[in-house]
């Protein structure tokens, strides 16, 4: 118990600020997140009214966005577990690939739940390999992660060839159909909200669409995913275990000096990370497509990692990052006219950012925001449709812009990516 309190006391000084100001900062950040959500919603709604692109906030779009956001969010959550323990995990992609295969191979024969279990196990094995390489052998984290991506892809392609070829409806690059999981809705809500949505009232219809999308035909795995985010937040930030795990990511030698078994905590973080990446893969295979297919992950492991960095190594932040990726992905898949209207949304948001930056006297950021905002506005006015390939690029450009404008405010765990050897702290 005394070790716990000591670590607890040590933590705020580790982040370089007094407890009071840290608390104030958290409050400000929370309000800012809420404020950003409200501003974003108003901007979306206004643009929908102006452009008439109803699909911007329709229930269908929101529902699709949710399905697309969950795998990214789960990969990001995996990254969070690993990086909070001080191990950079760029191997999420490979672990996710292993997960999709596990879900497809076991899932089509024994049902989705066992498929999910297999995916989690496969991903966890990938995580274990990463842990052995980085923690026990001290290999550079990025090097090991890249190697795991290559290995995960290779193992999966070989196993698929051996285990799936000749199966009914399957082949060397895809599995037979996996039975689907239940998709419950809140009864009566959709019937009540659909008419409201169809009136196209400013804000009210948008809210109705969003609520309908979030409450109708939601896969049980989505609910599990939401529970996992909440559980992660609780475990990592409100338990002694989580405090110790995060201490390993901030200053492993300090943690070591307080008797924390750093190797063990890092192993737990990285294996958990692999398991969550496996879950993300299972979600893609079971919920999003109903089969395992080669190349199904499409780099979502990397995007999950980007969403986590976007979210400043915090669960709430990574959820908003995943939502952003999921939303633009959904827009791109659903409706060309609505995608074009997104340009106007971007221009409005950038205008807001520019004003905010001006108030804060950050003139370079303000100038950049104005330049890109004018560009987006001009593009919106000069064209009628946005080519799908350009929409495809939006989340990645957004990530780059956010990192370029806000990277100084991001704070990763202090010892993230550094090789730790027991007893070698100086």
């Amino acid at each position, binding site marked *: 118990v005394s070790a716990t309190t000591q670590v607890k006391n040590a933590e705020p000084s580790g982040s370089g600020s007094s407890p009071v100001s840290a608390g104030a900062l958290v409050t400000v950040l929370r309000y800012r997140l809420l404020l950003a959500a409200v501003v974003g919603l108003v901007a979306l709604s206004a643009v929908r009214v102006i452009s008439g692109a109803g699909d911007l906030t329709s229930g269908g779009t929101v529902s699709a966005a949710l399905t697309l956001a969950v795998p990214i969010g789960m990969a990001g959550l995996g990254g969070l577990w690993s990086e909070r323990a001080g191990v950079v995990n760029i191997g999420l992609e490979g672990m996710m690939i292993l997960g999709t295969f596990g879900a497809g191979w076991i899932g089509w024969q024994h049902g989705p739940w066992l498929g999910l279990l297999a995916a989690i196990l496969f991903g966890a094995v990938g995580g274990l390999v990463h842990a052995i390489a980085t923690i026990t052998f001290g290999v550079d984290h990025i*090097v090991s992660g*890249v*190697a795991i991506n290559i290995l995960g892809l290779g*193992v999966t392609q070989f196993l698929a*060839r051996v285990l799936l070829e000749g199966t009914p409806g399957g082949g060397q690059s895809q599995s037979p159909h996996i039975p689907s999981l239940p998709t419950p809705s809140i009864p009566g809500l959709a019937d009540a909200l659909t008419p409201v949505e169809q009136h196209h009232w400013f804000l009210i219809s948008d809210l109705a669409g969003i609520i309908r999308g979030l409450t109708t035909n939601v896969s049980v795995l989505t609910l599990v995913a939401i529970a996992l985010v909440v559980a992660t937040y609780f475990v990592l930030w409100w338990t002694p275990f989580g405090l110790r795990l995060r201490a390993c990511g901030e200053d492993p030698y300090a943690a070591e000096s307080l008797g924390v078994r750093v190797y063990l905590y890092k192993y737990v973080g990285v294996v958990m990370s692999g398991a969550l990446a496996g879950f993300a893969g299972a979600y893609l295979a079971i919920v999003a497509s109903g089969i395992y297919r080669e190349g199904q992950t499409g780099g979502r492991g990397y995007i999950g990692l980007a969403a986590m960095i976007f979210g400043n190594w915090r669960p709430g932040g990574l959820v908003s990052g995943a939502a952003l990726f999921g939303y633009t992905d959904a827009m791109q898949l659903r409706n060309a006219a609505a995608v074009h209207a997104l340009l106007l949304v971007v221009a409005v948001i950038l205008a807001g950012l520019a004003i905010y930056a001006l108030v804060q006297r950050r003139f370079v950021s303000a100038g950049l925001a104005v330049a890109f905002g004018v560009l987006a506005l001009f593009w919106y006015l000069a064209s009628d449709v946005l080519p799908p*390939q350009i929409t495809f690029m939006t989340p990645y450009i957004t990530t780059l812009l956010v990192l370029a404008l806000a990277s*100084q405010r991001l704070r990763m765990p202090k010892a993230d990516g550094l090789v730790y050897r027991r007893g070698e702290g100086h």
Partner: protein
Amino acid sequence: MTDVVTAARTNPVTQDRLRRIGLSLAAPALAIVISLAITSLVLVSTGTQPFHTFKIMLDYAGQPRTTTLIINSAVTYYFAALAVAVGFRMNLFNIGVDGQYRLAAMLAASVGGAVTLPAPLHVGLIIVVAVLVGGSWAAIAGLLKVYRGVSEVISTIMLNFIATGLVAYLLTPGRLAVTTQGSNNIGTKPIPASGQVPGISLVPDSPLKVYGLIVLAVIAGFAYWFLIERTRFGFELRATGQNEAAAVASGVNVKRMVLLSMLISGGLAGLVGMPQLLGSSYTYSLDFPAGLGFTGIAIALLGRNTAIGVAIGALLFGFLDNASQILDLEGVAKEIVLITQGVIVLSVVIAYELVRRYRIVAQQRDVGRALAQAEPVPHDPAPAQGASA
């Protein structure tokens, strides 16, 4: 032979050098043995005889046609691996070689297809465009790192996706692409004969020719070695990679180094698509090979970022990729080599790390012994280099 052994026993400097060479060969050898063992295990568990499988692959690789294909793959991989290696030497992870070479090859192919020039100029123009495009695309990540503190790992990954979108956008009929008659494939306008590089008949009795740009690969390899090992720039690059704080203290401008090495890395990445573009396809079409950037990362790790090591790694990967094509006919899943490749990469990085640690321990032991004897011994020529090279 005996002379060498006696000399090594008597002269501590030679002894140290021999040990260093032995150790640096031990790591890749160990990795290859481990990966062969694991591959064999997998093969046995799927009911295949491993040694028979290896023999089939070796026999097939010995055929002149396959040998040519192996060399051709290796030439392409070599550029990719060198591009990655430049960054690695200063702890810079250019994961974006993939996007850089695809964008570079596509734009260079369009330029090459649009102009007609005398042969050497035409080829030169295409290559220069490719190098410039690759370099500029990589420079975005360099600028973001230097001026905005964005990790190059994330920015290059994002730039890969953006390059994918950009290539798909530009490679549509009406923009930079034309439809090929009689197929669904679309590509850039074919490069006329003056922009093509003829092959070389390097392998006797082979119906295929080796890419003419193998010459450029050799030059690039030599230039890489010279730049890294023999110039001030290379010294500063390695110094930054090994100990950034010490490099800064000794006057290295790290920001400039990051930008320059990103430019060089991207420029080399621009060359990745060239052997295929100028030597066989003459157009950038939808089926232009993708993912070579990641192969390059694997090979750079395997070859320890040295010009020779990377060349051997490129040949090994070329062998595995091409010789495995026969396996399907023999009833063995050819994807087995993907496992071999993955295991090699993972075990080689672990083996290098173990060797590095063993070296440090051995050096500390030597120093301890020398101090204990308290008599003047020949000073180790470069202890710091030995510890981390």
